[in-house]
């Protein structure tokens, strides 16, 4: 049901067709019990563009074609029995099965054809198109590698072509337009039919020539092969064996389950049978699991138990690889329990080990015994993969559950038990690693350590502590881990540190980079800004992160954002803005953090891509609150941009520097509004605060910012607010000075202090800073404690242009010098450098001298003017 629901929701662009089809599907399934499974899938696969299903059907059809090929040797084209007589040598045994399969397909075929006919009656092209796709697929399958097409199919396509031509002609004549989806479907059909009919042209011609005759001939042929087959004795063709067994073995187990007792001795045999059917179609996996559960109950030796559990768990996972995306919850839970039982068994029976590189035990009659001189009985399997799979499945299931329901919370509680499993897996692999004769690769250990880290890094310390306590309690008091000792695990910071250090030492490439990112994330989350920043910088990941896989890039983005938020909490507005710029400035936060798919307006995304993107989404509990993120980013941008705007507004020669384009755009939009109501969302609040700040009303600005609700989500809300109001006060003062400096001769520091409720020393420190950075042309008078603004510093346009030109000229020279230096690889360095140093030195010295002596200036100035005039005059004359 959820599948249908999702399908309808996702393919919103084609929702009408999708809905229609799903209704059809359910009707179909209700009236024909036998077909329940297959057709339902088919309907969805054919029509619903939703990701999983179409993919799954592709897989399935691939699988089927594979198995067809297998069977092809023994009973070449045995699906073609109705049409060809080549299948005589095929073995007889298959008959009953084959028959039913054939019937089923024929029925499917008929159903589809009926649908198409219905569509023709109603002129419903979407339906026709969908059914046609399905039909052609069925036919291909029926046809086998080199068979003939069924007659009904030929009839249908021929009729369809006629009907379509008619419809097209009609569409041209009638002024009434078809609706868009229908028209599209019609066009698609036109293409498809053209293509298909070409390959069946001969048959179609035959059909057109004499309709009745053609159909009859097909009926004659169909029953023909049946009697021939009966004559063939039971063959023991070795190649055909597996197919036979999977059919037979399957029925035997299901039927005989009640009659045949599962004895401990026969367990291995049963296992073998089940293993053989694995991955084959037509196997009922839930049935198998039932059998395995019974086997597990009967198993009495550790070896048997291990073997049964390994198979059981992997069959449970197989269940999930099917249609529904995530594994059913109850199966997940039992898998989790079985895995933990397995760990228990392995811990109690140390002589048995499960390793990846063990050889398969072929003899079902005997149980392997400990060889003299060997310490272990190896069983093939990979516990780490199981653990990883279990983890993945939980993630997938969390992805598909609506995070605002209690179901999500319930599901999330399973993470605790999952963490236990990961922990035990880690302990186990670690103990295996110690045994030299087992040759467990370092990679395996790394993988599981990484999993553990991934469950820890984004959580607050208290939560991690609870997890860890549970784990250690579960394993008992006498177990110790080398990688993360009991003592180290007590403190979350220590734990993350040890896990990461282990990975730094023992792994490389992507795992190492991910470990680094996890540690940075953890540090940033726990307010260790400088450590986090230094690690981030030292990792040099900025340069090579584009070469990594998408998952790591997402982790990188998340880490970056977390570092930015941490800087904000520390009150480092500039750093915070700088760090967040890359992610938040892009306007694609959702995508970059994998917390939602953006609506694609301009370029279409292929379903394949969309599916991939969905599978990358993080479960909700790992999300970083996007609204909070936006709020922080905008607040920081405001604090930086508003003084800058005021500064550039008053003096034209400062280059139009833009810190955040996103913020500027929002501000412009906000200013264009004729009427602004009271702020409703975060953005409104920040925008109105910006306006107030620009006007010098810092108190109003503070109120606006403080009224934003989302601050409550941060720890220490009060501290954050105090920090913000302090920043607003200071930036407000700066903005005020920039904006109103041209209108004042002097301003008293005292007055400024009372206006902005800052201490006079603080005010003069801020002013000093501005003067010394040459942002403000003013000076302080210590005696009267006034700010004295200098007059006549505004430049004319020509003057500022001249300055820019001279800047550019000198940067050109510098570039040239650098180029030469690179070109000559330092051979002319000795010659070049002292020259430059001396030149600059002289220039600087003289510059200060010139500035000091006021007298010389006027003369030079005059000379300068004359010179310019002369040049201009020459230009005019020339």
């Amino acid at each position, binding site marked *: 049901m959820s599948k249908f629901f999702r399908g309808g929701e996702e393919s919103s662009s084609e929702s009408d067709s999708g809905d229609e089809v799903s209704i059809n599907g359910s009707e179909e399934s209700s009236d024909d019990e036998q077909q329940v499974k297959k057709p339902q899938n088919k309907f969805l696969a054919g029509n619903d563009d939703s990701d999983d299903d179409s993919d799954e059907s592709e897989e399935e059809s691939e699988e089927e074609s594979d198995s067809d090929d297998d069977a092809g040797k023994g009973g070449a084209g045995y699906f073609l029995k109705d049409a060809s007589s080549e299948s005589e040598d095929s073995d007889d045994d298959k008959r009953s099965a084959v028959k039913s399969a054939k019937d089923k397909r024929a029925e499917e075929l008929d159903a589809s054809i009926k649908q198409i006919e219905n569509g023709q009656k109603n002129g419903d092209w979407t339906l026709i198109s969908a059914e046609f796709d399905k039909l052609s697929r069925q036919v291909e399958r029926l046809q086998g590698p080199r068979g003939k097409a069924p007659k009904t199919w030929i009839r249908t396509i021929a009729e369809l072509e006629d009907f379509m031509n008619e419809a097209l002609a009609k569409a041209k004549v009638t002024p009434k337009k078809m609706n868009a989806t229908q028209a599209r479907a019609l066009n698609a059909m036109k293409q498809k039919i053209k293509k298909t009919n070409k390959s069946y042209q001969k048959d179609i011609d035959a059909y057109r020539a004499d309709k009745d005759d053609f159909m009859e001939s097909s009926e004659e042929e169909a029953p023909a092969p049946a009697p021939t087959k009966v004559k063939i004795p039971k063959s023991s063709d070795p190649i055909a064996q597996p197919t036979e067994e999977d059919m037979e073995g399957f029925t035997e187990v299901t039927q005989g389950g009640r009659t045949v007792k599962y004895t401990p001795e026969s367990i291995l045999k049963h296992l073998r049978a089940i293993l053989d059917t694995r991955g084959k179609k037509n196997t009922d996996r839930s049935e198998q699991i039932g059998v395995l559960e019974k086997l597990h109950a009967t198993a009495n030796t550790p070896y048997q138990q291990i073997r049964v559990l390994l198979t059981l768990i992997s069959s449970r996972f197989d269940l999930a690889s099917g249609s529904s995306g995530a594994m059913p919850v109850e199966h997940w839970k039992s898998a989790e329990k079985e895995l933990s039982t397995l760990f228990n068994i392995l811990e109690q029976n140390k002589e048995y080990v499960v390793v990846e590189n063990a050889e398969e035990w072929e003899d079902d009659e005997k149980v392997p015994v400990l060889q003299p001189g060997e310490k272990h009985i190896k069983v093939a399997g990979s516990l780490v993969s199981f653990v990883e799979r279990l983890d993945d499945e939980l993630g997938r299931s969390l992805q598909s559950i609506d995070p605002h329901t209690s179901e999500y919370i319930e599901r999330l509680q399973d993470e605790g038990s999952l963490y236990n499993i990961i922990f035990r897996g880690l302990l186990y692999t670690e103990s295996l690693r110690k045994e030299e004769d087992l040759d467990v690769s370092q990679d395996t250990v790394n993988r599981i350590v990484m999993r553990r880290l991934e469950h820890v890094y984004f959580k607050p310390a208290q939560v991690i502590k609870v997890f860890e306590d549970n784990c250690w309690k579960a394993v008992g008091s006498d177990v110790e881990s080398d990688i993360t000792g009991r003592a180290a695990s007590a403190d979350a910071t220590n734990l993350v540190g040890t896990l990461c250090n282990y990975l730094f030492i023992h792994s490389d490439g992507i795992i190492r980079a991910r470990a680094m990112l996890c540690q940075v994330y953890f540090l940033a989350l726990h307010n260790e800004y400088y450590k986090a920043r230094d690690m981030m910088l030292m990792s040099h990941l900025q340069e090579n992160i584009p070469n990594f896989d998408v998952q790591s890039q997402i982790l990188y983005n998340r880490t970056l954002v977390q570092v930015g938020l941490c800087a904000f909490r520390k009150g480092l507005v500039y750093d915070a803005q700088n760090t967040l710029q890359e992610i938040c400035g892009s306007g694609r936060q959702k995508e970059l953090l994998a917390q939602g798919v953006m609506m694609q307006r301009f370029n279409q995304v292929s379903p394949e891509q969309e599916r991939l993107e969905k599978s990358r989404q993080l479960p909700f509990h790992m999300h970083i609150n996007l609204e909070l993120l936006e709020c922080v980013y905008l607040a920081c941008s405001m604090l930086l941009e508003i003084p800058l705007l005021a500064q550039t507004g008053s003096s034209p020669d400062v280059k139009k520097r833009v810190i955040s384009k996103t913020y500027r755009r929002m501000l412009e939009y906000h200013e264009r509004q004729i009427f602004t109501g009271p702020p409703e969302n975060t953005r409104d609040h920040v925008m109105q605060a910006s306006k107030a700040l620009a006007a010098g009303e810092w108190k109003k600005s503070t109120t606006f910012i403080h009224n934003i609700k989302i601050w409550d989500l941060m720890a220490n809300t009060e501290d954050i607010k105090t920090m913000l109001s302090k920043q607003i006060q200071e930036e407000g003062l700066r903005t005020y000075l920039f904006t109103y400096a041209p209108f004042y001769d002097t301003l008293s520091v005292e007055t400024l202090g009372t206006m902005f409720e800052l201490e006079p020393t603080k005010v003069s420190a801020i002013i000093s*800073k501005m003067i010394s950075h040459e942002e403000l042309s003013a000076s302080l008078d210590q005696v009267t404690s006034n700010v004295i603004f200098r007059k006549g510093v505004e430049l004319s346009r020509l003057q500022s242009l001249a300055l820019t030109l001279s*800047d550019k000229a000198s940067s050109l020279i510098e570039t040239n010098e650098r180029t030469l230096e690179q070109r000559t690889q330092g051979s002319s360095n000795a010659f070049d450098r002292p020259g430059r140093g001396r030149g600059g030195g002289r220039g600087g010295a003289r510059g200060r001298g010139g500035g000091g002596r006021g007298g010389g200036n006027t003369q*030079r100035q005059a000379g300068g003017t004359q010179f310019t005039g002369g040049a201009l005059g020459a230009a005019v004359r020339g």
Partner: protein
Amino acid sequence: MEDLLTTVSTDGSSIMPKLAPHLSRHLLFPLIQYENEQAEEQGLEEKARKIASGKIKLLEDTNMTDYVASLYCELHGTDEAPAEYNKKRQEVLADLEKHEAATAKIADLLTQDEVLNGLRSDKLANLEFLKKEHGVTMDMVNALFDFGQFQFRCGQYGPAADMLYQFRVLSTDNDKVAAATWGKLASEILQTNWDAVVDEIKNVREGIDTRLFSNPRAQLDHRTMLVHWCLFPLFNSDTARDPILDMFFSAAFINTIQTSCPWVLRYLIAAVITGRNRGRNSSLQQKQLKDIVRYVRQEAYEYTDPLTQFVNALYIAHDFESAREALRLAEQVCRSDFFLASSADAFVDAARHLICESYCKIFSRMNIHDLSEKLGLNPADGEKWIVNLIRETRLDAKIDSQDGTVVMNHPPNNVYQQVIEKTKGGFFRTQVLNAAVTKASS
């Protein structure tokens, strides 16, 4: 060793414990000696005794047995050194003889003119030549190295340096050559032979850049060590000062300082600020000052001491009150620091200039009384100081003695002047460039 360091750093003022791991035993010795003297001067008997015993422990592992024995006698007030020292002394003498015997032949050879004339710049050919003509073997060359090391341990730095130099000329073993270079650097530093030190620093630096190229960790460690060793010449030799400062400000070394030893910033600040009076190269100095302000800001979360606080207050916070306070503390720190003690006065003087400079930049009228207070002087001295300053730097300022104020005249920055300044160097630089291009293409 640890006792010693904890004793020294009990009041937290000395950063010796941080320096110590990066210095050689022999290089550390002068520092401890200095601490010892300080303690004695301040009359801290207990501390001085502790330091002295630490000193003995420090040197026990070396071959300077005589010196250790005399130190021991001094400390314990006895004439008779314990027997173990005597025994050690005998062993050392025996070793000495052994080494001398081993190197006698090659040492003799290397004093003969005809042998030296036969040597070329190619090491392999040299070795071949010596082998053929004089029967020198690889072992003999290596014996030179061992003997050099032995001499160094004995405190015979001069002979050690010679020995290591000879070894370096002959040996082809890269690791040992690198070790010999370090040894020679230490020997030259301890002999206060600064010109040679500068050369050796260059050698070591090149070695780090090339030999350890693929091992960033070792590069970092070695650079850290080199930075610490360079502190000796930095504050003792005028000629060594500039090249070493240049080296410190190069990207690789400033990164090293920031990553592994931010406390060296203190010395960097002191060197840059005291360097201003030398005046030759003021734009370079301005640039260095700007850089150091940046580094201080970057490292503020990791390392602060009065000197960084001073820079922070003056250039980042523009808080003159705290700058004055920091300067007072910085002066104390400088006086008690081994490296900075000699230049403490110069530092304070230069720092006052800096305060005054930025004060003049910001204020247009100031009270002499306040200003002298900020400079840490009394009003009369302050006035004198300001007059001197105005005269020296030709500042555009006048003293109004009736009001007791200094009036600054800030001429507005002339646009035309700015354009001229910016384009002034252009012609010269283009010429240089042109010449370089011609040279490169010819």
